């Protein structure tokens, strides 16, 4: 494997993992929608 190949591999995989980690962190740390907005309609719809 050449240095160029290693660079491309590390950059590509690093970029994808960074993006996925950022998105998953945001998704998993946000409060549920009904708590965030406190809307009775949303709560009703979840109950159905």
């Amino acid at each position, binding site marked *: *494997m050449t240095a160029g190949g290693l660079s491309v*591999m590390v950059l*590509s995989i690093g970029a994808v993992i960074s993006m996925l980690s950022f998105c998953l962190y945001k*998704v998993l740390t946000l409060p*549920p929608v009904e708590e*965030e907005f406190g809307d009775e309609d949303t709560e009703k719809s979840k109950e159905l």
Partner: protein
Amino acid sequence: MVEHGPEKAGVRGSSPRLTTFWLASHARSRTTRSLLSRNILRSQPPSKRFLFLEFFLCDRLGTVDEKRPNPYNEGASTIDTADQGNEMNESPDASPPHKPAADKPTDPPTGDSMPAEDYVSKEQWGSRIGVVLAVAGSAVGLGNFLRFPGQAAQNGGGAFLLPYFISLLVLGIPLCWAEWTMGRFSGVRGFHSAPGVFSVACRTPKARYLSVFALLIPLVIYMYYIVIEAWCLSYAWNYFTGDLMLGEDSDAYTAYFDNTVGMNTDGHVFGKGSSMLGFILITFAVNFVLIYRGVSAGIETFCKFAIPLMVVCALCVLVRVLTLPSEQVSAGLGFMWNPKPEALTDPKTWLAASGQIFFSLSVGFGVIINYSSYLGKKDDVVLSGLTACSMNEFFEVCLGGLITLPAAFIFLGASVASFGTFGLGFNALPNVFAQMPAGQLFGFLWFFMLFLAAITSSLSMLQPVIAFFEEGFALERHVSSTFLGMIALAGTFFVVYFSKGLKALDTLDFWVGTFLIFVLAMIQAVIYGWVFGIVRGEREAHVGAHLRIPHFVQLILKYVVPVYLGAIFVAFCYQNVLGSTDAETGEYKPGYLDNIMSDSVVMMSVLFIIGVTAMLLVLIHIAGNNWIRDGKFAFLEEHDTGSTTDSGEEL
């Protein structure tokens, strides 16, 4: 719809919300009047609701006392503050375009004349991560593990990643956001099936006919995808029992695959190869049990379990591959990742990269608009869409790029680059596992993971059609599931019976799974950019969003994506649909169009596609008439009176 304008009625300087309320009192349909006025009344403080209600009733009865204070005017100074800069029938409280990202998510629409406030879907996703996993599960399939590495190796190795990521940013993610936005927009207005989504997005019931491909594509792909899914299950089972450890003879694996799928004889699976029929029926039953349980209890629950399990299985195989002798691993990774910069000057590389992104993300599939229609009106589409895309890329680049081709190269050499998707997956890799220490275990894990990837994808193909049967014909879920099951089973038996050379499967995959996906993606891109409108699209996308889409993405969606898709489509047709003559040998290579006339199975397959299309068009016509008769499109008629700009924004 109205007898005279709001200004004549004394609604001077009317804000969109006040104008909507005036329209509410003059709407022709009682249902529309009720919905509109209820929306406005809800948004007022209790002290003002009575004034509005009284004025509403008096205005309807023609007994307005001109000396009484007019709440439309009285409240304008305070109520208008929230509405300035927004047009009627948009989401007035959404952030205006170009506004910097806010920490707090944008409020949902409140003054839209469409019945978004009152509609509560029977089915909704249970959690944010649930819908992300379901969409990612739909996108992650065999192509991530088997097609991507082959495409990369054939088109410049590491250099392929440059056009690949450019295509992801310019084509893939923007198109996903467009589909998520239109899907949720229609879902909160009561439409989950493609005909309803297209009608709402285009604001005319006639647009429902354009959606025929959004039903045809998932339905027909399901018919043959379920067969491939059954192959994966069969291989996993045979690794489990040890029947697939056939030694190092590569021909043994080719013969095994041919015998399993009936490559040499039509009807093989209904005769000597009947064990495959059992795997097909098991796969079919698993799919329909899950889909019958519904969006949240079936699809979401399964994906929450299946996607992490896929990651675990893939990581086990990855660790096994990377812990082989280091020189071999280095050579295998180099074969996949070493860049060949000269490939970047070849248009084929860019075409292959764009095509890979396009098919990998499942855009133009009819699935994302359906899945996102089950979101609530305040659910985030921007972050969820980006997360699903990122997850798909993780499976493709990080797992597919490190496992499949490097492992195959280590044991089989450079010839693996020329293997097709099925060749790499079902001929080369079993040979690799046979030569690898503990190959039986890793073979089982690999094919079980492919089976899970396939099942999360096939589930997503059933839901759009079930949603159409449910809302178009008011069928219960078990009835629509049964009806769909009968249609899908008939198609699957067609594919299974005509197994010789996999011609039926290949023809359906080309014309529906490739050609029509391009067509549907272009239709959706044009609808979003030019009919739904990028101004509306940008505003709707940011309702409830925790990330902000840069404004230039909307311009890309309107101007670049349709042209980009069109260029890829023309090049694709030139390469595949029409025949071509080899420049070196002078030999004529027939295209898919030539095959229709020369092969009876290919012709039957094309006639089958045409027949299913015709059936779906009739059903869409009937369903649309049902919706019109029931008044479900009444709110669209309100829009017919307004004029629109070329960007779809209402004046």
